[in-house]
């Protein structure tokens, strides 16, 4: 295991038990059976979901930055997350979300449709420019359709549910959500790790990578599958959580040797840590309602993005040559 992975894993193993005891109600000083109930039924699934969603976002971000050779790439830009969101929004609009299972399933179907479209549009030839454009267009289309569904919402409650859900959160999630997202995210991270050597080859550009025996079409399929599984399942259980996929690889990169392959596992661990800590801190804040996780991370993420741009302006390198 690399040094970065070891540090982040240790931090994560420290953070998980802390997040179980912390919250608006601290588990110390209350009845033991109640404490056990809170931990087993509320905090443990929530913590595991935070770890799952964060790990998926971090790993997908690292892989996308490697693939696009661009440190400003975010997995949410490429259609899969907006596709998943569209599926979820449709389930609210048709009043299907209440059944519990239909929301994530429609959301996964949305992610799957976006993946299929991406693979169809960009698969032949496997060019990166085509992939980027196709992804951006799918994202725009899914975004527009989401707005359309919102504007046609049958009643104010559906509207409010949709808008709240889109903000992304981990409140009131159950073991069922963990069972859905964790295996898919893990599978997605394994797929992305398989693509890692080819991402290293892309350090020298598409031509060089092809000459090194990288099958660009296969690489694109691995990425679509890996990002689809991680991001699709993440959105299905937690809504849109932005900026983690962008921020985490940046924070982690200086701890590694900067090869894309060295970044995927540490970024997964870093993403897990960031989402877990952010979610735990949020639920302790003395606010009337709970600040939505998606909003909070965007509030941290957007200034971080601006700071990155400022560093670029001042001639910083972002780990680039």
């Amino acid at each position, binding site marked *: 295991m690399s040094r970065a992975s070891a540090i982040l894993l240790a931090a994560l193993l420290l953070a998980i038990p802390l997040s179980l005891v912390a919250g608006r109600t601290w588990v110390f000083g209350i009845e033991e059976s109640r404490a056990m109930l809170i931990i087993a039924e509320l905090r443990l699934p929530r913590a595991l979901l935070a770890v799952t969603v964060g790990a998926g976002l971090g790993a997908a971000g690292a892989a996308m930055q490697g693939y696009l050779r661009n440190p400003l790439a975010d997995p949410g830009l490429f259609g899969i997350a907006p596709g998943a969101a569209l599926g979820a929004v449709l389930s609210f609009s048709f009043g299907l979300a209440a059944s519990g299972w239909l929301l994530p399933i429609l959301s996964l179907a949305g992610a799957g449709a976006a993946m299929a479209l991406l693979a169809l549009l960009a698969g032949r030839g496997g060019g990166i420019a085509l992939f980027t454009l196709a992804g951006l267009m799918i994202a725009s289309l899914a975004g527009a359709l989401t707005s359309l569904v919102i504007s046609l919402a049958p009643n104010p409650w559906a509207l409010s549910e949709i808008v709240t859900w889109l903000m992304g959160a981990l409140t009131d999630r159950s073991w069922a959500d963990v069972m859905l997202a964790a295996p898919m995210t893990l599978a997605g991270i394994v797929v992305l790790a398989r693509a890692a050597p080819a991402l290293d080859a892309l350090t020298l550009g598409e031509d060089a990578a092809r000459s090194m*025996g990288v099958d660009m079409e296969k690489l694109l399929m691995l990425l679509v599958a890996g990002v689809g599984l991680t991001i699709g399942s993440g959105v299905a259980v937690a809504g849109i959580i932005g900026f983690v996929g962008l921020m985490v690889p940046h924070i982690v990169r200086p701890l590694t040797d900067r090869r894309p392959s060295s970044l995927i596992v540490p970024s997964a661990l870093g993403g897990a840590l960031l989402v877990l800590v952010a979610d735990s801190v949020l639920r302790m804040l003395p606010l009337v309602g709970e600040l939505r996780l998606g909003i909070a991370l965007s509030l941290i993420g957007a200034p971080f993005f601006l700071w990155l741009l400022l560093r670029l302006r001042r001639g910083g390198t972002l780990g680039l040559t």
Partner: protein
Amino acid sequence: MLEAHKLALNHRLRGVCTKIAAGRVTAICGPNGAGKSTLIRLLAGVLEPTGGEALMDGVRLRDMHPRARAREVGYLPQEPQIAWDVSARNLVSLGRLAHGDARREPVDAALAAMGLEALADRPVSTLSGGERARVLLARVLAGEPRCILADEPFASLDLAYQASLAQHLRTQAHEHGRAVVVVVHGLSLAHNLADRVLLLNDGLLHAEGPPEYALSPENLRAVFGVEAHWLGEPGAKVLSLAAGDA
């Protein structure tokens, strides 16, 4: 070894036949837009031809597994942008990708052959242009290919680095028996570097042979439209240019 059979790509290359020999340096020369980069990229298997075939030992490159092809043919693109600030050693290690191993010996040997031992752990952003060019060639050498194809490796190198890189390429061909193919813009450099020259013009092979033949004043007049003649001894040729009427 490596062979072009009526190799064509759209209008850029219009049917080129040639055989690349082991143990020799072959230079691809010609005016801008003649199809030099297209030819070398087709020979590297990076592009797929729209007509004809590129063959390795009689097998079509497009029928070979990409990694099997990559083990035989090493390709150095024109001025590659290095996306991430990795160490020189990590970059050179990419040469082992097609072999699927992480053996240190070929990587160490390639670093040593390029005189990069002392720079191995430096991030590539801290290297000079010439050092970076050597790292990029070392990456190709680490794959131990039988053919080395390089697209304008001399561009943006100063004279000293050009001379040293030319020497390295000649060593790879003459002492290690590799087939070395280089796209070269500078005709004097091509004349002194290469054992054989392919002179392209307008997507076709205009002349092929030893430099003194392929780059003869007649061929240069026909292809570049300039009056020029060669001065100096073999191995130290200089092109003397008169103003042409083209």
